[in-house]
């Protein structure tokens, strides 16, 4: 079976790289699934989005990615994010706390709104409802 070479890189380090059978992401235009042989594409990930990488072994890797881009080329898929966290590494309690705090002080402050979106995407990636 054909696979995609996927690289998930955050600014400070490479989070994950390996073979995958499918990548599901949400760009600013809408939900998108990438299978092997996809046409070359560049997309901007929606803020507070969740990216799912189905690995070659059939496992689903759910990642909360913020401020990112998706680039599909012949060589594979690279996901660029300012920060990214794999579901298993997310501290649900802290994310919930961050969401509460951000919502409490939000209003129209763009920083707080962004923080709220980040927190809710972390919660969704971890499989909780936000």
């Amino acid at each position, binding site marked *: 079976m054909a696979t995609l070479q996927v690289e998930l890189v955050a600014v*400070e380090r*490479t989070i994950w790289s390996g073979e995958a059978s499918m990548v599901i992401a949400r760009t600013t235009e809408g939900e998108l699934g990438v299978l092997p042989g996809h*046409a070359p594409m560049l997309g901007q990930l929606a803020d507070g989005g969740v990216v799912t990488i189905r690995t070659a072994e059939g496992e689903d890797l759910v990642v909360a990615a913020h401020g990112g*881009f998706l680039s599909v080329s012949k060589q594979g898929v690279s996901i*660029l994010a*300012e920060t990214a966290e794999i579901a298993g590494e997310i501290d649900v309690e802290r994310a919930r706390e961050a969401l509460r705090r951000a919502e409490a002080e939000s209003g129209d402050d763009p920083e707080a709104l962004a923080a709220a979106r980040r927190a809710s995407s972390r919660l969704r990636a971890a499989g909780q409802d936000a």
Partner: protein
Amino acid sequence: MAGNLRALRRRIRSTKSTKKIFSAQELIAGARIVRAQARVEASKPYAREITRVLSALASSASLDHSLLTERKNPRRAAVLVITSDRGFAGSYNVNVLRRTEELLSLLRQEGKEPVLYVVGRKGETYYRFRDRAMAETFTGFSEQPSYPDAQAVGRALIDVFTAGEDDDGSDGAGADGVLGVDELHIVYTEFRSLLSQVPVAKRMAPLEVEEVEEFDYEREDRESGTAAGSADSGVPTSYEFEPSAEALLDALLPKYVTTRIYAAMLEAAASESASRRRAMKSASDNAEELAKSLARQANQIRQADITQEISEIVGGSDALVSANADD
């Protein structure tokens, strides 16, 4: 004589204890270099990918973004200087600041008014002492910069650059009422090796198109390196864009600038530690040498004291003997 000896012993003790501080600093700096270098390495995949995306975008979209186009009549230029928060780093800060002065006078010659943005407490004190205006300062993270730190700096610079877009040729602030800048420069210390760190000045914006082409080579190198057998690597791939190429460029370029600031900060942090380790090494060597020569002096004085004491005793007993003989 004895008082002199005591003073010398005290100096030896204090030299030895400062030496301990220096060598502890040296060890800390040594450990930090390793960590800083690891962080530089860890940040490279992202820089490489974003460059790749940008060059793919640049080959497809028309390059008329404000971060890419040269302004007609540049009046003001922002200069970001990266210095350290703490001293004890030898000539590290002096070199960066000297390079900055060169850049500033060059800019003034070209008729552009420089606006200073300073990272690090040492740079801040330098300019404050000289009563020079600074637009903004950022301190507290020079040794271990994190990406949010770089974002804060990047946001400030991109904001002021965007504000400069509608400034008119004179000192007017333009439609938005904010006096912006027309160019962004950065001065930081490049980490070449453990022994050589060189202060460099680079222009960040407007980005030069040559640079984009240069990245293209990098990308091709990488592709031919990793994907052997992809015969079509010479043909530019035509990408689909989601959203439009222009919107992507809008979102991507500020991030790219921030990434470059972050990379510069990481390099500067590695250089700072390397420079500090070298300075601390020579300081502890000097302290060692000083303690040795002081110990030698102290020994000489001690021996002279003993000799004098013996000759006094001998002299005294001789006098007694001769006095007794006279009786």
